[in-house]
């Protein structure tokens, strides 16, 4: 199950971390994957390691031309497009009043506009293939508030809302749209924010994670959920956001 044999996929933010893990699992399950990233060389290296079913393209998801180019690159390389994973994202983790206007705008540009453009520009190719699946990377921060995650959470909540509307608008075209909301996952992004979170919450990060979600999630675990939603096993799932948080959001404590 969750096999992606013959599927042609585009994954943004695929040079490292979560995006790279998603691309890796997709290739393992039989898909051809276009790894898109603003880090052109990183994407190239990651694709080279995945063998001849993987290619790469430079893509700044805040640019319509780049996103259209990435979609076209996938269509040219694989003969069509069936799956799009809008994964590219950046983080700003600090108190709202300490965030600059520029930081806020940049965050919204990459994390919200990037997903909008990813949906907008991939739909013609997905429809031409007779339908397909879009999986958007949201976050647990998109469903609940947390100190330091105000703007990031607002952006990720927007991703859920885009997911819902796109799902309903695109249902007739046979395109399913879902989102994944991971809790804290072991990535370079989470490593970077550990000192800030510890300072704000006053608890060692390891203790906080153990109490709230048992342990850190892994990028492979998130990739499994993305692969499930991208596959025909999820043929009736659309407009949903699936949490993946070790129980964090289930508890008030």
């Amino acid at each position: 199950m969750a096999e992606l044999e013959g599927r042609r996929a585009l994954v943004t933010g695929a040079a490292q971390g979560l995006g790279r893990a998603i691309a890796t699992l997709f290739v393992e399950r039989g898909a051809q994957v276009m790894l898109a990233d603003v880090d052109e060389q990183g994407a190239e290296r990651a694709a080279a390691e995945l063998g001849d079913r993987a290619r790469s393209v430079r893509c700044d998801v805040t640019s319509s031309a780049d996103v259209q180019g990435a979609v076209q690159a996938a269509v040219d390389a694989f003969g069509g497009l069936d799956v799009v994973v809008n994964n590219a994202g950046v983080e700003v983790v600090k108190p709202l009043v300490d965030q600059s206007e520029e930081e806020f705008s940049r965050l919204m540009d990459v994390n919200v506009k990037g997903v909008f453009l990813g949906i907008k520009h991939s739909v013609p190719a997905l429809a031409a293939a007779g339908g397909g699946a879009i999986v958007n990377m949201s976050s647990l921060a998109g469903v609940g508030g947390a100190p330091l995650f105000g703007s990031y959470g607002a952006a990720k909540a927007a991703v859920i809302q885009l997911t819902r509307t796109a799902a309903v608008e695109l249902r007739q075209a046979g395109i399913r749209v879902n989102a994944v909301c991971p809790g804290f996952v072991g990535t370079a992004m989470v490593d970077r924010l550990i000192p800030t979170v510890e300072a704000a919450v006053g608890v060692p990060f390891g203790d906080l994670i153990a109490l709230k979600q048992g342990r850190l999630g892994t990028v492979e675990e998130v990739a499994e959920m993305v692969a499930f939603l991208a596959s025909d096993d999820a043929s009736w799932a659309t407009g949903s956001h699936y949490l993946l948080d070790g129980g964090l959001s289930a508890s008030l404590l």
Partner: protein
Amino acid sequence: MAGLLERKIAIVTGAGKGLGAAVAQAYGAEGATVIVSDIDTHSAKQVADAIPNASAVPCDVTSPEQVEALVDHAVNLHGRLDVMVANAGVANISPLAQMSYAQWREVTSVNLDGVFLSIRYAAPAMIATGGGVIVNMCSITAQAAVPLIGNYAAAKAGVMSLTQTAAIELRPQGVRVNAILPGFIDTDMVKAHKRQFEELLNLPDFDAVIAQKQGRYGTPEEVARLAVFLASDRSRFSTGSAFVLDGGARASLL
């Protein structure tokens, strides 16, 4: 290719037909040893007969003794229990203002008490062997109302709450607990009540409402695929979560 549930011992309640039967069949196809449980002995046996290595055990999930015996059956026969799918459920139709207490209790006793008892007796067996997975069959009516099934929706909201508490309490012992929230599925339960919905809500065509809200009816097999994912190690970081599967019904306000 090896199945996703090889060597797993799984109980599915309410597996004599509908969603439960589809889940039992999908689990069997993925290599699990399935205990097909239903209050209707005959239908449980029919389903079990068509699944390799499966056995049928009659069980009324509103009875603590019977649920305990069901779990004991798995442990005695196979040495452990890895997966419990608390699926058994019933429905009846009435506006709240006319609902009899018997109607309320029929639905809440099976759909809510039954899930509590399934967790209550499955969890200790799972803990004894280092962990396991519980999948509760919930419903999108846990999140938003459908007129005439207030008893059903209230019970399902209770199932979601039980899912969360069980997930947190059992996390240290390696037991994951999640809920599937399907929209309207093409089952006997839904078909049986279509006319009543049309009459009591003055709807010309219930199917047209479904088509508008969720595109089409879901199939039991589609719910079963999610139940396989949630029982498998592929979802090992998921616990306490609501997995909505509804063709987009919940995504739209309109």
